[in-house]
Every structure is written in C-alpha cells, then in structure tokens.
C-alpha cells in the first residue's frame, strides 16, 4: 500500500475529530479567556471556586488511595491464595463496575443513608436514638468512589498478576528475602505499570464524578458540581474557567501517571506458572471464609437493594428497615405509561447509537494508527486520546456550548449521545486493552 492511501482514509477521521473533539474543547478554553482573563481572576478570587478545586483534588487522591487499598490486596489474595469462598468472591469482585454511577449512588443512599437499610439495622440492634452515621460530605463521596472504582485497580493488577512470572518471587525468596521485602522489592515494582493504569482510571473517574458529590456532597463544593452552579446562576465565563481547570487537572494526572507507568515497562520473557497457595491453618481458613462472605455481601448488597426497591410499593416505605409491601405495579406502570417509558427508551437508544458510532470510528482509527504508517498518524492518535483524558463533565460542557443552540443546560439528547461517543474514542489504553484485559471507562457524567 502506498503511503498516500491511508492518509486519504485518515483525512475524514481527522476532520471528524477536529470538529467534535478539538473544536469544542478549544472553544471552552477560548471562552474562558474572553474578556482578557477577567473570568480567571474571578475564579481565582472566589473562595468557593478555590474550595471546589481543592476538594475535587483531595477527593480524587483519597479515592485513588482507597481504591488501591481495596483493589490491590484483593487482587493479590485472589491470584495467589486458595481459601473457602475464593471462587464466589472472585465472581462478584467486579460487580460494582456493572452499576452505573447514579444507580450506585441511589443504592448506597438506600443502604447506608440516614434511613438506609444497613444504618437502621445497626441503629435498632444497638438501640441508638439516631442513625450511626451520616452518609454525607467528602468521606462519603470517597466511600462511594472506592466501592465503584476499586474495580479498575483490581482488574489491572489481576491481569498483571496473571502474566507475572512467579519464579521472580521464588528467586527473591531463594536469595534470602522475606515476604515483606519480596513484595516491596520485586512484586510491587513489577506491578507498577498496572497499578499506575488502574490509579489513573480512578483519579480521572473521580475527578469527573458528578452523581456522588451531587447526592452525598451536602454543602461541599467540587468542580463538577460547581460548574453546574455557575451555569445555573448565569456565570458562563466562570463556568468555562472551571471546565478548563477540571480538564487541566485531569490531563496533569494523566501525564503524571503515564510517566510513572512508562518508567517501568518490562517484557517478562521467562515463565513460571502462577500457583495459588492454599491457606492451611484452620483459624485462617475460617477467618478467610468469614471475611470473604462479608465482602461478597457488601459487594452484592447494592444490586439487591436496587432490585428490592423496584418491587416496593411507592410511598409505603417510611420508618421500617425494609420496604413493608411489594408489588409489580412499578413495572406495570413502566410498561403502560408512555411518560415513564420515554426516558428508558431514550437511554437505550443513546447507548445503542453511541456504541455503534464507537465501533465504526474506533475500529477505523485503531486500524489506521496501529497498522498503517502515514503523515498525520500521530495527530490522529493524539486527537483520539484527548476525550479520554478529559472528564465527561468538561466534554459535555464543550459540546453543549459549541453545538447546542438551545439553553445549554437543557442539552439535547443528540449532544449527550455525542458526548458519550467522544469519550469512547480509542485512546492508546483501549487499544492496549485488546491485548491485555483492561477495563474501559464508563462515562461518569
């Protein structure tokens, strides 16, 4: 194939990405600079905006730490140890990722909110006057994030452990190193690229997370919700600054973790089959069984909760621990009331369109950038990764501001579908995912 033909095929794709990726995002930045930087000054001088930025960053960092604290040990345990309940635990370990962010947040408030099932159960068991906790504020957000996002770390690390050569750990052992040093000096460095990948996903997802701060934030301000506040109050210029800052924070995180990931990249040539060591001692086996049962319960509860409330009689559930009455009426209503069915249909339709568009566009881009050589290949590659690096809220703002002629807050479903499609562009990570099982990233908008 001559060098010209792939370029001809790439031109329409480059044009498309310039139109839906570069143009809206660039215009957000340009709009933020309008008026000679007056909006930036406004942003920098506003205490609530500074609070939002700081809160967004610390919540994201804390979410990363919490996700690693859960995902890394869980992956190590499931890959390297055998204990009663291992199979069940490993089957449900990725379940939280199957919960759309908003649905997860709703399930969490039903479970752990002030009048949630778990909160009330504990309150009654201990005979407390009030709920044992309030699911509100920054730590509540981190808790919800950790639950839904540890899966990224877990999946990346599990995949890496699957490929790891266990004879490296054996070699370290034979050379006289105990378990802690082996982990710190051998296992962890080898897992660094995978860990960085998982951490990156958590950081970006939690930076762009909207539902959790919106529902559990209380009066806490984060960037993603602050953008909405600014727009509602008509401060469009500041909203553009906030959007730009959100996008820049995400890109900074991306670059930082990419650098960490790139510093340690090895091809492991040797082989040693990963072996699961059975936990032998009786107390340890019982502890493992109890712990994994608990963990499985916690992981499955939100799903069960959603299922349960779907059958609850509307309005009947007040002070009881569990909904007192059940019915099929909710489903009947969904099937008979067109007003209820319309959003469901719209969601399915958008998902379908976004998926189809992604398959076509991403396949073409991946095919061209990976298998062909032509001038402009790098530009195409770069344009394709940009939506991945920018939080969905920022993308949506850009698209709405650029393409929607109506009030940007009542964005048409077309623009939202496009936002979703743009987010799913094939970054190098999604292409890498074709080689190693790595999770994609659900839009958290």
């Amino acid at each position, binding site marked *: 194939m001559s060098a010209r033909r792939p370029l001809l095929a790439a031109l329409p794709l480059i044009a498309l990405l310039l139109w839906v990726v570069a143009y809206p995002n660039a215009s957000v930045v340009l709009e933020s600079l309008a008026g000679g930087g007056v909006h930036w000054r406004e942003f920098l001088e506003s205490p609530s905006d500074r609070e939002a930025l700081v809160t967004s960053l610390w919540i994201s960092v804390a979410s990363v730490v919490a996700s690693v604290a859960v995902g890394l040990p869980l992956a190590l345990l499931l890959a390297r140890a055998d204990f009663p309940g291992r199979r069940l635990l490993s089957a449900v370990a990725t379940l939280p990722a199957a919960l759309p962010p908003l649905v997860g947040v709703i399930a969490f408030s039903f479970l752990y909110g002030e009048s949630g099932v778990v909160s009330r159960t504990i309150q009654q068991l201990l005979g407390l006057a009030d709920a044992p906790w309030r699911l509100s504020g920054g730590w509540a957000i981190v808790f919800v994030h950790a639950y839904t996002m540890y899966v990224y770390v877990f999946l990346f690390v599990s995949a890496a452990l699957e490929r790891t050569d266990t004879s490296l750990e054996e070699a370290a052992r034979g050379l006289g190193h*105990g378990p802690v040093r082996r982990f710190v000096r051998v296992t962890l460095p080898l897992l660094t690229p995978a860990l960085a990948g998982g951490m990156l996903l958590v950081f970006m997802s939690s930076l762009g997370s909207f539902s959790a701060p919106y529902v559990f934030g209380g009066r806490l301000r984060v960037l993603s919700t602050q953008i909405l506040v600014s727009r509602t109050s008509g401060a469009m210029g500041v909203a553009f600054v906030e959007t730009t800052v959100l996008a820049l924070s995400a890109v900074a995180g991306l670059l930082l973790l990419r650098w960490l990931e790139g510093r340690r990249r090895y091809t492991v040539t040797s082989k040693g089959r990963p072996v699961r060591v059975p936990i032998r001692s009786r107390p340890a086996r019982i502890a493992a069984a109890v712990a994994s049962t608990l963990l499985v319960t916690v992981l499955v509860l939100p799903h069960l909760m959603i299922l349960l409330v779907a059958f609850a009689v509307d309005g009947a559930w007040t002070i009881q621990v569990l909904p007192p009455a059940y019915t099929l009426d909710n489903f009947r209503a969904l099937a008979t009331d067109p007003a209820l069915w319309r959003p469901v249909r719209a969601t399915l339709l958008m998902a379908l369109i976004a998926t189809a568009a992604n398959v076509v566009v991403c396949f073409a881009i991946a095919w061209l950038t990976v298998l062909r050589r032509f001038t402009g290949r790098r530009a195409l590659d770069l344009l394709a990764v940009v939506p991945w690096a920018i939080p969905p809220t920022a993308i949506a703002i850009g698209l709405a501001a650029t393409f929607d002629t109506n009030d940007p807050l009542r964005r048409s479903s077309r623009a939202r579908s496009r936002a979703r499609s743009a987010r799913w562009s094939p970054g190098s990570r999604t292409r890498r995912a074709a080689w190693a099982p790595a999770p994609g990233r659900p839009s958290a908008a």
Partner: protein
Amino acid sequence: MSGALALDGVTRRFATQVAVQALTLDVRAGELLALLGASGSGKTTTLRMVAGYEHPDDGAIRLDGRDITALPPERRGFGMVFQHYALFPHLSVQDNVAFGLEARGVARDVRRRQATHALEQVGLGAKVARPVQALSGGEQQRVALARALVIEPRVLLLDEPLSNLDPLLREEMRTELRETLRRAQVTALFVTHDQEDAFAVADRIALLADGRLLQHGAPEQLYDRPASRAVAAFIGRGTMVPCEDRGTHARLVLGGVARDVAVTRAHGDAPLADALAVLRPEALALAPADATQGWPARLVSRRFAGSATAYVAETEGPAGPVRLELVTAERHGAVGDAVRVQLVREPVAVVSAAE
C-alpha cells in the same frame, strides 16, 4: 562452605499422580550431581523440594546431617539458577547480582563491589550497569549464575541451565559451567533432560523415571554398566540383543554364528535367566563378508556424520531379526552390502529383559 546433601525416602504426591516416589540420594560436599530424566520423571519436583519451594509429603532432606525439610527457602542459603534465569527485569545487572547480598545485610558499597567482582569472574565486568533485558541469552545465564554464586551458597541448584541456549553456545557453556562450578567448589545439583549436558558437567548422575531413581553413579558407570533395561535404553544408543548369560561371559548367536563375549558384572551377581546384551554402536565394527570373524549381516542404512559414519546392519537373532547400530571410522559400506559385524570392545553389559 559447601555442604553435603541427603534425600531420604522423599515422596511428593500431586492430585492425580506420584511425582517423586521414595527417593533416596546423596550428594557429597563439592560434588556436581545431575538429575537426569525425561519430562515428567520428577526431576524438577525433586529440585524444587531441595530448594524448599515444594514440600515433601514423606521423607526428609538433610544438609550435613541436619534435617532441613521444614526450613523455608529464604533460610536455606541455597543458590538457584532458574530455567529461564528469573532475572529481575527492573534491576540492573549489578543490582541483580547484589540482591542476595542485600538480604544478608551486606553494606551497599561492599555488595556492589562483590557483585562487580562476581560479574568479572563470568566475563561480564563491562556490563554491570546494563539493564538485564539488554543482555543475550548466554549473558543472562551467566548473570543468573553469578547471582546464585555470589552469596556463597551451601548448595547450588540449577534447573535446566543450558536448555535455552542455541547448540553452538550450549557446547561452549557446558565446559564453562563445569569450570565455574569447580572453581567455586560448590555442591551442585542440576536438572537436565539432556544426557550430553549431564555427561559434560556432572561428576555423578542420578537417572530418574516416573518419580523413581533408576540408577545413580558416574557417567561411565551408567553407560557401561546400566542397572536395568530402562537405563540402557535411556543412556546412550545401542542395540539390546537376547543372549545366554553364563556368569563371566554371555553367548550371542547372530546370523547363525555363536560367540562368547565377556560381561561386566558386579562380583557375586547371579546370571540372568532372560539376559539382553547391550551392544554400544562404537563397540561394533564392520568387516568384509568374507572375514573369518564376526556376525554375518546386511547393511540397511548409512549416515555419514563427518568424523564417523553410522550404519544399521540387519541380522538374524534367536528371536527374529535384529538391527545392530554401529558407529565407525569405516565409511565405505553401502546399503545392501553383505558384511560381518565384529565386537571390538569387551566386556559388554547385560540387563534383564524384564522392565
């Protein structure tokens, strides 16, 4: 100081099979012992039990008389060279070699110096700062060896150390490996499926099949005096011919010609009822058909191999046709020629036909 290793009735069972069956074996201090066997013979499992990565279900492993069966690998003080070397990809060549010294509390600059010295010993003094992935297969093997030797192990364990090298390099590394191990005066146990590797490197060989020890001895001993038909079949090439065992000698009747040949036999062993004589290819020679001595035969194949020529000669044995393999400097035989096959090296080994 290198130690004497003893395996005493060591058994390892996996879910469906017995990998190692009541293995008893001695490795003297400073000895190079090869564990030789086909894949699935239990040799790697044995090595991993000695290293401490596998636990015997039965039996004991002793070092200088001390039971170390329950001792974890990190406390055995053994060195190990893994089949694929298992070098740490995130560390430099030097840091790989220094890694074991780190666990022994050696100061940073001292271990660097020792590592560099160990690398110089294996001819890699110029590559201490390289990442290990920049090295060739042979160089990686030497780094793995230096890493295992620098901790002055009581016992050195090597898992198929030569199997990943191409044939030319492999030949060279055999000699080099033996010299390095000799110089280190270390007790070494090495696993191989290749008898030439075992012959070239080891002082003694333990031949394993199906988790059992078939024979244990010097390479020449296994070759010249195989203890069983299985050993004779595994070690070296040759033909096993039914014969009449008469104690000090055996009578072979081939092509209608009987000949008494001297037999290698431990003093006092009773003659075998169902004896097979082991005729090694280089113990046989070709003679013209009209020679007065030798068994009449017909050449059925010829393969020129440079320094020697390999033939297969077919003759009639006591229980049907027999194909004799022979390797000789004589290169003028042609397929179809009537010849006589002479035995030029005695005594020969006899083994029982029963497995």
